[in-house]
């Protein structure tokens, strides 16, 4: 059970005009702009739900994930995840969640992937039997047996992403945050990742929150969509309802792809 109530976060960003003179001036007197990354964000996610979290770049998706995973302390608001406040009980909370950052690797570059897995096992203090069981299951579902003995730097992006996902699940977390897990993947890898997430959710009842720019991820996986723009939750419901919302808008194209639909909505909502 994930609950966010009135989560707000403001960043201080230095701003200046272009040019050397401006740069020199900014060295001494800096003008700051306050950017509201999160503005009274409220939502709740039940255990076992799969939720797609969408929004344009810079809308506050990553900040929300950071708050929920305990990296970032918000300015205001409450967040309880299975009874804990993430930023207050960082370590305890970390044992229960898995986080995949699609743009960054958590594997050790120069050693075979299985070595990284073993170190992660020790970091999370997973006991031997559980580790073995998880590793066998993940190897089977993600087809890792061929690539596990290869150093991470020699893997293709798709292979590596499968390993990243496995690495985040070795400690059997009950919640999984996926931050753009399909970014840059080819069609085959995307399908494999989607199939796996679906299977994981069905087998283990893992709660999944997934941010993405690929609407096919959402339609394939998530019953429910959260749309964030300029730090506010603008929509919370099924993708079908989102489509309905679009159809009501003037000039809607009934044959619009999900991509076009979302783009039109972003435009309409001015986000």
């Amino acid at each position, binding site marked *: 059970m994930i609950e966010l109530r009135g989560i707000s*976060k403001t*960043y*201080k960003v230095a701003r200046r005009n272009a040019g050397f003179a401006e740069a020199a001036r900014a060295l001494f007197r800096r003008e700051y702009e306050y950017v509201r990354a999160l503005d009274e964000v409220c939502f709740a996610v039940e255990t076992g739900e799969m939720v797609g979290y969408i929004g344009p770049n810079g809308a506050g998706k990553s*900040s929300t994930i*950071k708050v929920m*995973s*305990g*990296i*970032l*302390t918000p300015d205001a608001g409450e967040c309880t995840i299975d009874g804990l406040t993430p*930023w207050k009980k*960082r*370590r*305890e909370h*970390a*044992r229960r*969640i898995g*986080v995949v*950052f699609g*743009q*960054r690797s*958590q594997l*050790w*570059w*120069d*050693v075979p992937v299985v*070595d*990284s897995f*073993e*170190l992660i096992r*020790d*970091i*999370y*203090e997973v006991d031997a039997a559980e580790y073995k069981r998880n590793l066998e299951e993940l190897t089977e579902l993600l087809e890792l047996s061929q690539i596990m003995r290869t*150093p991470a730097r020699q893997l293709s992006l798709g292979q590596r992403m499968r390993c990243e996902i496995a690495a985040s699940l070795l400690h059997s977390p009950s919640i999984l945050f996926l931050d753009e897990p399909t970014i840059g993947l080819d069609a085959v890898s995307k399908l494999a990742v989607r199939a796996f997430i679906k299977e994981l959710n069905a087998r283990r009842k893992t709660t999944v929150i997934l941010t993405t720019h690929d609407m096919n991820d959402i339609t394939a996986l998530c019953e429910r969509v959260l749309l964030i723009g300029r730090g506010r939750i603008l929509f919370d419901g099924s993708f079908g309802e989102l489509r309905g919302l679009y159809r009501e808008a003037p000039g809607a194209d009934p044959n619009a792809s999900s991509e076009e639909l979302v783009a039109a909505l972003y435009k309409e909502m001015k986000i």
Partner: protein
Amino acid sequence: MRLYFKYLGIQLRCQMQHKGSFFLNMIGQALTSLTTFLGVYFMFLRFHTVAGFTFEEVLLCFATVLLCFSAAECFGRGFDAFSRMLGNGQFDRILVRPRNEALQVLGTNVDFTRLGRFLEALAVFAYAIPKCGVAWTWDKAATLLMMLVCGTAVFIGLFVVYASLCFFTTEGLEFINIFTDGGREFGRYPFSVYGGRVLKFFTFVVPLALFQYYPFLYLLGRAQHWWYCLLPPISLLFLIPCRFLWKLGVRHFRSTGS
């Protein structure tokens, strides 16, 4: 602690993958310090003593500081290269893992090539220990060991200060190098040769002299007080403000997210 050794293991395996660069780096590290050593050597070709210390005595001092520094650089590399970790988001990953942040930073980056200097320091020790005219007794050997352990800890403390400041400035602040690299270079000679003010600074502010100068005098039998041999552990007090600064930095990071 067990986890730390696991980290060491994986780092060693990583670095041995590129054995060419591993050994070349190691030799390179040793060579750069060799020039420092030659600096001391040529100084003593012209002058037979420096501020009352003989060549062999200074070598003992030189080797102590070099050994401490290289060990600190090898094991504390995570803090030394911390600005990179902040930049590429690795620190976010550390925060979503259920372990102590500092331990993970230490474990994420261990640079075994720095042991090139370490080996060089050992070689100088091998020469200086029998020749420096110290009548080695158990208590003196223990003092030397304490100097080495505490010295390494103080240098790591300096790296922690350096890393903590990165939280506020994002870029590393090179001025801290005055105390780390500078400490290593100054530390070739007992701190008293630089005059009273420098000695006071390195006693009370950045306590390099507590593991270098005072116990060193004790080894040579020139200490005014017997308790000089107990000063190295006192230098560990320096780690308290370091730890505080680190905690402050982590808190700042978690409230600004950058």
